[in-house]
């Protein structure tokens, strides 16, 4: 319960007004919150790359923009390469201090954009890559991605997804890049701190942000923050960072809340049997235990 108390105690974020109201996210959208925290922390000396996704919709239709920075909309598989191209040009022009960032969804990161991201990480491109992870192709109407968790309903897995969510944080950590972190909108202070920290580091930095999709997950308009906190407290989405592939730090984790507390409010899980819930609990426990051991091992 200590986590809950800590997180509730302070909310003190210095924001530069880069992301603005009037954007086109759904009311209560978790991703819009993430946009606010990320962009207002990055500040105006930033160029963003956005692939087709909810992020592209939130960016705004021509000639409008919800962001007071240059935004380039690329193809679904190319975010990391496009951001790298911008940064290389900035370096060539002697404007290295300007940040090049990518803001992509989980489909554009875990699936079709993964090849470009892996290569950018291997090349050590000086970019910050934000994955707005809502665990599916939500902009096209809720289809399964490789980030969709086991048993979750999507329109392409109407009987529930039979396989596990891909562990992207570990895959990126295995690239031994300077900074990988997980974050969520239910912990804005933690998210902002990680963005600030990433800003100070050179090289490829990846932050995976759990951004609940109210429509795709089947939640009320006011549930985004609450459900993302439950994702942390149940241990299904622990918040941690990995530096250079070895130094693990847990920033917010499980307080022992059973997974059913997280699954029950979501329409995408309402078909689950008691056995399936047990299976998920078992998998969450196993994964969380592995994470704790890593944290301890590299502490």
């Amino acid at each position, binding site marked *: 319960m200590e986590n809950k108390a800590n997180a509730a105690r302070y909310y003190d974020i210095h924001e530069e007004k880069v992301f603005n109201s009037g954007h086109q996210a759904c009311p209560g959208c978790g991703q819009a919150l993430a946009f606010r925290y990320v962009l207002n922390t990055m500040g105006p000396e930033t160029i963003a790359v956005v692939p087709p996704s909810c992020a592209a919709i939130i960016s705004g239709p021509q000639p409008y923009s919800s962001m007071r920075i240059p935004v380039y909309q690329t193809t679904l598989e*190319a975010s990391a*390469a496009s951001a790298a191209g911008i940064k290389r040009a900035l370096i060539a022009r002697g404007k290295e201090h300007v940040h090049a960032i990518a803001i992509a969804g989980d489909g554009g990161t875990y699936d079709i954009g993964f090849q470009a991201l892996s290569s950018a990480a291997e090349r050590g491109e000086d970019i910050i890559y934000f994955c707005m992870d809502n665990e599916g192709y939500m902009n096209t109407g809720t289809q399964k991605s490789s980030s969709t968790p086991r048993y979750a309903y999507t329109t392409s897995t109407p009987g529930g997804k039979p396989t596990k969510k891909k562990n992207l944080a570990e895959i990126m950590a295995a690239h031994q890049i300077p900074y990988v972190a997980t974050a969520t909108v239910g912990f804005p202070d933690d998210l902002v701190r990680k963005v600030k920290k990433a800003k100070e580091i050179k090289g490829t930095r990846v932050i995976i942000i759990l951004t609940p999709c109210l429509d795709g997950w089947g939640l009320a308009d006011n549930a985004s923050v609450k459900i993302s906190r439950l994702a942390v407290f149940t241990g299904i989405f622990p918040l941690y960072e990995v530096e250079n592939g070895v130094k693990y730090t847990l920033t917010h984790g499980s307080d022992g809340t059973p997974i059913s507390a997280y699954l029950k409010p979501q329409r995408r899980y309402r078909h689950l049997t008691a056995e399936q819930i047990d299976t998920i609990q078992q998998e969450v426990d196993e994964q969380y235990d592995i994470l704790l051991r890593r944290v301890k091992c590299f502490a």
Partner: protein
Amino acid sequence: MISKPTAMLLTGNHAVSYGAMLARPKVIPIYPITPQTPIAEKLTELQLSGALEAETMTPESEHSAMAACITASLAGVRVFTATASQGLMLMHEMLHYASGARAPIVMANVNRTIGSPWGFWPDQTDSLAQRDTGWIHYYTESAQESLDTVLQAYRTAEQVSLPAMVIHEAFYVSHSLEVVEVPSHAMVDSYLPPFTPEIMLDPSINRSWGNVVNQEMFWRHRKYLGEAMEQTLEVAAKADAQWKELTGRGYELVEAYRCADAEVIIVTMGSMAGTTREAVDMMRARGLAAGLLKVRLFRPFPVQKLQSLLKGVPRVMIMDRNFSPGLGGVLHQEVKAALYGMKKAPPLYGYLVGVGGLNVSPALIEKLVRRTLREKAEINSIWVGE
């Protein structure tokens, strides 16, 4: 630094690398593929030696290479890349993106068969399949022309804000050694001013690109792209004339060689133009009135030029080293469309020669000329080989 024009023994691919180096690109995202690889190797070698000051990037695919080319160009620097065959196929999506973003990228493509089955042979289908992508397309026949055309392509592309492709064939041009005159840096600098776009991706300018548009905006965007293409005909002709003034070497957009009083004019592109020039000389020596019409600029397609050069010609034969299944030779179809409805339009004979890299010899060309003089023209392209 090349201080004075220097004769060097270069392959077609290395000539392209020298051309690119002289253009002083700042970012070069590039991915290896046979038979393009020597272009990339020479560029990284020139960079290591300090002769070329550029950010080279080695991404995991041609798709990412072109993605990075586009954003680097939009972020205000000159970029270069090169590819071939399957690599160009993988880039296809991004080729449209590049022209849509009006990014004046210059890329070399080395024509190679597209699988399956797997092959490494000169065949122009790879680049011809990109004809609707909004790129300027140049086809060259020699190492010297490839070097010169890379520089002309930059000069043209940056004036009309369109990307340009310089295309030569696998091995016949890419790997053949020739004496090439490499111009000096000073000459090229006087021809090609630094790339300084007014609008770019930069926080101080704060302009964005690529977000969703309505139907009317999209329509207008395509119309502007078409206008830039039309403008390209004049700009590219001028770029060629200026290069000729500077170096003595000009190629024109459509070259007519010994076409006066020709009974048959042979229309073709790329390395086959060089072979045809030899064949024309041989045939003329024997009293056979043949001429060559080399299409160097394929996009924008120089329709008016072709009309004026082919009007009233007794017979025209087109040699295609490519194949569009269900239609025939691409150049044959394009010439047919360009001449449609014209008074005194010549009969057209389309030959699918050299498809898959088959050798097209002067003797074969003469045989086809004699056939053309003998037979009636057919609507479809005719297979030549076996």
